[in-house]
Structure formats: structure tokens, C-alpha cells
């Protein structure tokens, strides 16, 4: 019985731990990308193209056929779009962004990058940019018309720090800026490419007096992004891409990891189930005499089944409680393990997710395994004929 209990504790504990770690990284990644690029982007204008055929002779009859969608790059009237977006109940914020390719010239070297023209206050509502500052102060950027927020990787490559000046070159013109602050999202592709400047500066640099490249949208309920994107696209006639679609490849990777760890954990819970099966099967063999006594006293088959299921239930209950404690403690221990990661997100320690559902799932899985495993010996015990047992023992 101790073996079954140990396996149950191990199964539940490992289930909780693996769920906490795999979900932890996934949730952290989602938090990072939502804090950087928002829950949704509304960008290119959609233009329906129809092929029509009209009957001659003054008739009104005509046939229309949808040919497909044509996209017109960017948003011409961002204010209208943002106002319309605010009517969607799940939209918590919308910020216009003007994007363009630039060459960053510093004293040390030049690097290709992308400039993002933003309205700071709007951008702070749809991203974690304020919290991603690792050097300098966002207030400095707010006050400096020619200030810029530069990604940490790009700043390191150009050997720039706060207060350093550099030149952005685009559309044949060069404008000088000063590094107001350096940010770090942890996403390497962003930190090495993006330079945030004020919208007016971006318009001058990119020679785009009106319109924006896209509107970054934040949502109250992030998981509803796909449905909201469809509605927004339908209503506003601009393409809307939810974060789930934008980060599809990474999310698929995390899903594969989660399935992989679930398979590993299932093996442990299966072992717990097998241990329970073996233990109860042995108990049935050892306790045949007791089964005969109980049956001779008038205990029914279902009483015998219940006794064995109760035993399994007690092991399961103790195992589940201890397993949850072991899982929580090991999750806590793992969360303090140093593990510097940057590239898709930035962390110095193992990222874990504290979610009550992991414990519910672990207990449910263990309960299923243990109960299935105990049902067979329990039913076998109930099927024993008391006469056969007594005769076998007595003679």
C-alpha cells in the first residue's frame, strides 16, 4: 500500500510541477508578446473586388461575383478607426503606430533598424513599454521631442547609452536623435530592430504627413482576440490580426512541449495506477478469508467492492494531498532556480505558473487511474464465492 501511495504522490506531484513549468514559460511568453505588440493589430485597408455582368436592353438584371480581397497598405484615417475601435466593449486601448525602415548611424557603426512613430501616452495603454525600460527614464522621452527609445541589443551593438546621440536615415534625409532610454522586451528580434520616436518625428523622417502603418490594440479579455478580430475586420474593413495568429509558430511549439510533458507525466500516473492495481490484487489474494467471513455474515458483493474502493479512495486522498504539497513545494523550489533566458522572452530564473487548475487536473488524472486500477481487483474480490474460499481453507 505504501508503494501505491508513493506512486500516487509522485504522479500528482510531477503532474503539478510539469504543468507549472511548461505553462509558466508559455504564459510568460504570451505576457511578453502581449506587452510588446498588444493583443491585436489593425492594419491594411481591405477593398472588396467584384466582377459584375449586367444584362443589356435596359434590364436591371446583373450578376456579381466576389473575386477576392485587395489590401491597401496602412490606415489612412487612424483617428476614425481608433474611435470606431473604442465602441468595441472588449477593447481597452488603441494606439497608432507609423513604421518604416531606417539606417541608424552612430559613431561606432551603422545598423539597419525599424523606426516606430508613437504617441507615448497611447502606446503605454497598449503595451508594457514603460515597464520594459532598463536604462534611463520614460519621462525623459516624454519631454524630449528628438528623443528615442532604443532596444537594448541595438544599443549594445551601436555602443550607445542614454544621452548618446545618433542619426536616423530614411527617405534620403538624416535626422539626429538622442537616446532618452533603453528598453528590453526580452524578444531578441524586437530589441535589436526597434527604435521608438515621437509620431511627429516619424512623420518627418518617413515623409508621411498622414496615415499610420497600423493601430495596436489591447483587449480586456485577451483570449477573445480571434473573435474580436473577425468582427473588427468585418466592421472596419481593415485587416485585424489577433496575437494567437501573429505568434502561431511559437504557440504551436509551446503546445507541443505541453503535450510532450503531459505524455511523460501520464506515464507516472499510469505507474501509480499499476502500483495500485498490484497492491489491491495482492490484498485480494491475502484477504480472501476475510472476504469469506464478511460474505458469510451477510455482506453483499457490492459491500466487498466498496471496501476495496474505499481503500483505494483513502490512498488516493492521502496521495493527492501529499502530491499537491510535493508539487507546490517543488514548483516553489524550481521557481528559484537560476535560468537566464533571452531571445523569445527574458528571465533570470525558471518561470512557473501558479494555477489551481493544475492541481485539479492532477487529482482528476490520478483519481481516474487509481479508480480504474482498483475497480478490477475490487470486482474480482466481490465475485469470490464464500463457499469456495471456506472449503479451500478448511479442507
Amino acid at each position, binding site marked *: 500500500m505504501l508503494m501505491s501511495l508513493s506512486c500516487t504522490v509522485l504522479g500528482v506531484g510531477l503532474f503539478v510541477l510539469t504543468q507549472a513549468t511548461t505553462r509558466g514559460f508559455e504564459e510568460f511568453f504570451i505576457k511578453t508578446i502581449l506587452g510588446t505588440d498588444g493583443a491585436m493589430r489593425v492594419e491594411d485597408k481591405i477593398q472588396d473586388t467584384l466582377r459584375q455582368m449586367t444584362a443589356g436592353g435596359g434590364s436591371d438584371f446583373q450578376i456579381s461575383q466576389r473575386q477576392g480581397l485587395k489590401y491597401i497598405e496602412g490606415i489612412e484615417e487612424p483617428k476614425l478607426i481608433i474611435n470606431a475601435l473604442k465602441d468595441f466593449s472588449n477593447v481597452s486601448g488603441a494606439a497608432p503606430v507609423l513604421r518604416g525602415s531606417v539606417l541608424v548611424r552612430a559613431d561606432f557603426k551603422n545598423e539597419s533598424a525599424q523606426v516606430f512613430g508613437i504617441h507615448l501616452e497611447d502606446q503605454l495603454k497598449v503595451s508594457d513599454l514603460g515597464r520594459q525600460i532598463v536604462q534611463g527614464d520614460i519621462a525623459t522621452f516624454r519631454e524630449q521631442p528628438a528623443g528615442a527609445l532604443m532596444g537594448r541589443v541595438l544599443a549594445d551593438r551601436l555602443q550607445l547609452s542614454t544621452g548618446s546621440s545618433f542619426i536616423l536615415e530614411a527617405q534620403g534625409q538624416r535626422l539626429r536623435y538622442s537616446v532618452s532610454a533603453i528598453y528590453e522586451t526580452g524578444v531578441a528580434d524586437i530589441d535589436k530592430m526597434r527604435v521608438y520616436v515621437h509620431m511627429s518625428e516619424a512623420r518627418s523622417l518617413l515623409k508621411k504627413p498622414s496615415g499610420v502603418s497600423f493601430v495596436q490594440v489591447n483587449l480586456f479579455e485577451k483570449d477573445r482576440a480571434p473573435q474580436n478580430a473577425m468582427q473588427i475586420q468585418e466592421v472596419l474593413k481593415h485587416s485585424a490580426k489577433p496575437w494567437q495568429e501573429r505568434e502561431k509558430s511559437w504557440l504551436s511549439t509551446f503546445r507541443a512541449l505541453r503535450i510532450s510533458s503531459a505524455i511523460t507525466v501520464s506515464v507516472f500516473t499510469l505507474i501509480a495506477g499499476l502500483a495500485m492495481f498490484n497492491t489491491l490484487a495482492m490484498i485480494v489474494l491475502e484477504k480472501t*478469508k*476475510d472476504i*469469506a*467471513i*464478511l*460474505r*458469510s*455474515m*451477510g*455482506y*453483499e*458483493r457490492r*459491500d466487498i467492492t466498496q471496501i476495496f474502493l474505499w481503500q483505494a479512495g483513502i490512498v488516493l486522498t492521502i496521495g493527492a494531498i501529499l502530491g499537491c504539497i510535493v508539487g507546490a513545494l517543488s514548483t516553489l523550489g524550481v521557481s528559484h532556480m537560476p535560468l537566464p533566458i533571452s531571445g523569445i522572452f527574458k528571465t533570470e530564473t525558471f518561470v512557473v505558473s501558479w494555477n489551481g487548475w493544475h492541481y485539479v487536473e492532477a487529482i482528476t488524472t490520478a483519481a481516474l487511474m487509481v479508480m480504474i486500477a482498483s475497480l478490477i481487483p475490487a470486482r474480482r474480490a466481490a465475485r469470490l*464465492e*464464500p*463457499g*469456495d474460499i*471456506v*472449503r479451500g*481453507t*478448511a*479442507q
Partner: protein
Amino acid sequence: MAFTNELALRCDGLHRYLGQDDARVHVLKGVSFEARRGEVYAIVGPSGCGKSTLLYLLGLLDRPDGGEIEINGQMMSTSDDIARTDARCEHIGFVFQFHFLMLEFSALDNVMMPMRKLGRLSQQEMVERAHYLLSSVGLGEKTHRLGTQLSGGEQQRVAVARALANQPSIILADEPTGNLDVKNSGLVFDLLTRLAKENGQAVVLVTHNPEIAARCDFTRPMRDGLFV
């Protein structure tokens, strides 16, 4: 007693085969038997004559291949498992040769087990009755001892108390003294018969012990699957 001489148990033309194929043996060959309340019956005979097999059939622990069994006027030989189990709980008490106590439980718990299943008494009443029965068999001071902490004779006395727990109309005992010394044999037999007679119960016991058999009201010798 009001129950005296009422027919508690009747079987007619019982047949039972044991084993399979070439090893199949015709153990009981049409046995008929009756037991009345307040009477003590001994079934005697050489080993393998079918005594215990008959006892298990009468106790509804086994099913006959032919014949009828009536418990308190109710036909039980063809009834389903639940009806047979209920009848065992209410009408039959068993005493086996090897005590068959649940050794992890106390004497009190062992005696209370049949009462718990029957469910007629409250917890307090069950405890009181178990104490009364254990005192009746001389174990009033050892009610909380585990089965493992009792001697063979004491275990068998607990088994007698347990058999009487639900006040069944029939007590079936398979070699109840077979594993005990002479002193304890006498003690257990006296207890069994005295308490059974006081409560108007039919006692059917299988024994090899001629002295025990001689002290019973009726002795039914068996040979080769038949009463002789």
C-alpha cells in the same frame, strides 16, 4: 421458548458435485435434513463424506446442483445472490473451525460486524449487545483486544459471540472445537449450546469429536454423501 420446535431449516434431495472433468466427484447424493429451533444437531462422519459441503449448502455459502433448501419456510436453493446474502445476515450464524476472525479488528468490532450490516440497532445498542455477548462467552474484560492478542480458545469464543450477534434462528458450526484443547472444546461447546437453547436457535454442527457429538440432541452420521 416461543420458538421451540419450529422448523428452522429443511433440505430435501441435495446433490452437489465438486471438481471438474475427470476430477469431478459426486459429494452429496440426495441428502435430506431438518433442524428445529432449540435443538442441537451433530453431523458426524469420516473425512470427505460431505459433512462440510452439506453445511456450506445449508448456510447458503454454496449452491446445490440439485435439491431444495428452505430457511424458515422460505425456499432459498434457487434464490439470487442478494436474497441468499440477506438470509445469511438475518437468519444464519457461522462458526468456523479456524475462528476466522478479522484479526486487525478488536473482539468488540468483530462481534459488531454482523450487526452493522443488518442495521437494526443504533451504534450504542450495538456496542451494548457486543459487550453483553462477549461477557456471555467470558470475554467481558477483553473486548478491546485485537484478534491477534487473543488465544485460540478466546478467538473461537469471540466467533461464537459473533455468530449470535444478529440473533439468527440457525447456528452452523464447522468443527467448532476441532482446533481447541479439551478444556476449551468443552467450554466453547457448552457456550454454543447454552446460548442457542436460551435464544431458541437451531444448532447444526459438524464434528469429528464423538464426545461432543454424544452431547448433542441429535446425531446424524454421514458416509459417502448420504446420511446413514
